[in-house]
């Protein structure tokens, strides 16, 4: 069997249904094999978008997303998508064509050192020099991409290997002596955590993307309800715990809720599950949770004690460790948390997430998001670009289900959301998929309107158009004396752009039109791009200035 065919057969064995791939000279044999395979091929208009599509597919399903590009420029275009997936621990296999073996290292036409370039932005990578190694490499790549702390794995495949013959044997098991992620938390540590829980008066859970990745949301819910501990959900963890639950404190950190940040600052026990204490969450390290004992549960040992000193580290899978904790928990030993909950209730009442309606009669972006929530009742998959709109989408939509909020957290990649939404919709044809975008971000991969049109992918694009690179403008306003260097945008007519690609476009300028516009958008059976002209200098609040302690927020404090 030819290498190209071996690759396709192996992908089928891995259960791959869709590939996001862009052709080129070094992958012609692969595309030829795809031609009559049952795998669905989606051709994006830019390889970066293809990688984000695979990412959206993976984040919304928990399966491995697969993207494919040719050597050289195709591969380098993929890299932003690979790095984005790496930072957010997304299962992805990226396949790149490579020039033929004998030319590697010769600065051949369309050659790039892909293993070198992707070394620091992938979980692992391979250059397959011999067709005999191909099937095994693919098996290993899928295993690595989806196990332990997931991540993108890159397979660089020279074009001559795609044409060579080998016997096709697929393996059912993989054994890597140096790679054995541990799932079970150390029993002794579990006991110690429970002891701390029994004596804690002001405990807080801080839960992150690990909850969603390991599918631990049910366990988290049970654990929180049994122990009565309030739950904060990081940006990456949104949807891992129902936002509408009475124990939910919302998002901590830079644009988190006042009550989440106050609770963390006052807590005497902080239990982090599947969250890595990102600097956007902790703020000034020396004043982060100063009174708390800290428990850190994470599958990746390198995440533990990286920036926060931890009292009890537990290396393990979030779901498994929570199960262990529930199993061992003795509810009769729990202390009464009534006064702690009263405390939190006061903070919540005094400092809710809010925005003001008045002023210029222009549309408030928060209102658009709220209206989308009201009309979808939380049932949609919300995908965002990067900027202010991303934070409003995190603050004003309520996420009750895992995998219902997809956003580039770690790398903060503008251009991620729109293609990721296409990937998510292809995986979830029965769900409403909505992109919340800024006028800046949407233009980073706007050419994907063509892909949307070509495959008739029914997603809804909401542009919160403020004529600025809003998030940067906000920083310039607050910290650079309103010197708006490089941030005002001269935008195209987005409605016409959409129409040029054969997509329906609408424009909304008045607050009184928002409700009916959202209704019209959601009821359409076809994709719609909606250009909402919003209050231009609206800011995201509350906000912790960079390097400040998280209980010192601007805006939102009563």
């Amino acid at each position, binding site marked *: 069997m030819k290498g190209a065919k071996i690759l396709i057969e192996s992908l089928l064995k891995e259960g791959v249904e869709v590939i996001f791939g862009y052709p080129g000279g070094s992958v012609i044999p692969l595309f030829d094999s795809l031609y009559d395979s049952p795998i669905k091929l989606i051709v994006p208009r830019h390889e970066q978008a293809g990688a984000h599509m695979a990412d959206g597919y993976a984040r919304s399903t928990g399966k491995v997303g697969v993207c494919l590009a040719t050597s050289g420029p195709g591969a380098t275009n993929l890299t932003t998508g690979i790095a984005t997936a790496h930072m957010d621990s997304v299962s992805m296999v990226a396949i790149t064509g490579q020039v033929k073996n004998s030319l590697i290292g010769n600065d051949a036409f369309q050659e790039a050192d892909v293993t070198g370039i992707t070394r620091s932005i992938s979980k692992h990578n391979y250059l397959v020099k011999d067709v005999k190694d191909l099937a095994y490499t693919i098996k290993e790549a899928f295993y690595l991409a989806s196990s332990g702390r997931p991540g993108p794995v890159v397979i660089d495949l020279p074009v001559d290997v795609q044409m060579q013959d080998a016997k096709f044997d697929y393996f059912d098991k993989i054994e890597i002596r*140096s790679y054995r992620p541990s799932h079970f938390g150390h029993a002794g540590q579990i006991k110690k955590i429970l002891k701390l829980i029994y004596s804690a008066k002001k405990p807080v859970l801080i839960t992150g993307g690990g909850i969603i990745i390991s599918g631990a949301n049910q366990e988290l819910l049970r654990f929180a309800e049994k122990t009565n501990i309030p739950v904060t959900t990081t940006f990456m963890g949104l949807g891992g715990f129902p936002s509408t639950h009475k124990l939910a404190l919302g998002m901590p950190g830079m644009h988190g809720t006042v009550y989440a940040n106050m609770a963390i600052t006052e807590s005497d026990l902080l239990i982090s599950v599947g969250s890595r204490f990102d600097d956007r969450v902790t703020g000034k390290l020396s004043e982060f949770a100063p009174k708390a004992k800290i428990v850190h549960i994470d599958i990746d040992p390198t995440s533990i004690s*990286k920036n926060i000193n931890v009292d009890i580290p537990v290396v393990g899978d979030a779901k498994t460790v929570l199960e262990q904790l529930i199993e061992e928990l003795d509810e009769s030993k729990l202390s009464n948390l009534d006064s702690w909950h009263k405390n939190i209730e006061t903070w919540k009442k005094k400092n809710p997430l809010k925005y003001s309606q008045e002023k210029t009669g222009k549309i408030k972006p928060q209102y658009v998001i709220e209206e989308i929530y009201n009309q979808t009742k939380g049932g949609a998959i919300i995908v965002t670009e990067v900027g202010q709109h991303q934070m409003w989408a995190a603050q004003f939509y309520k996420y009750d289900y895992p995998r219902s909020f997809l956003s580039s957290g770690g790398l903060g990649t503008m251009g991620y959301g729109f293609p990721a939404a296409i990937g998510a919709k292809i995986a979830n044809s029965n769900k409403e998929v909505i992109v919340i975008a800024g006028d800046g971000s949407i233009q980073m991969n706007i050419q994907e309107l063509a892909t949307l049109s070509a495959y008739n992918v029914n997603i809804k694009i909401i542009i919160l158009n403020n004529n600025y690179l809003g998030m940067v403008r906000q920083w310039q306003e607050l910290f650079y004396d309103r010197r708006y260097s490089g941030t005002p945008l001269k935008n195209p007519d987005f409605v016409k752009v959409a129409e040029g690609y054969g997509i329906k476009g609408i424009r909304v300028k008045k607050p009184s039109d928002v409700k009916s516009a959202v209704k019209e958008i959601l009821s359409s059976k076809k994709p719609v791009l909606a250009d909402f002209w919003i209050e231009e200098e609206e800011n995201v609040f509350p906000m912790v200035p960079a390097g400040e302690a998280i209980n010192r927020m601007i805006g939102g404090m009563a």
Partner: protein
Amino acid sequence: MKHTIQALVENKFGVLARVASLFSARGYNISSLAVGETQDPTISCMTIVVSAEDERILEQIKKQLHKLIDVITVIDFTRRDHIDRELLLAKVVKTKESKATIDKLIKAYDLKLTEETGGYCIIEVSAEHHKIKEVLQSLKKFELKELVRTGRIAISK
């Protein structure tokens, strides 16, 4: 403070680059790096000497090393009973005067005279770090044509 770290790794291409880039990505300078096959030809042993003031960063580097898929084990020798060696080869210009001093040096430090021709001789030293340093100091009096050193290798007692 200098730390000697040993990593047993899969004997595959690309592994050295992965390990090296872990250090360079953090702006760490590797003082020395020695790599060779072990008794098992599928496993290579890397001995890495690195100076780190911040123990926390070092701890992170060790964990990151361990996280690399091709790394099998990581051992920090700094607080372990171990033997370490470095090898030094020096090509020393021979003159009438230097001959006698070289002989003395050879006796004092138990060096090996590996090669002797009309114009120069090659001195070989295999020793632990501080002794290598002393020898280097003594060699300063001679005219050196070439001097090469390996990185450190270490083994636990």
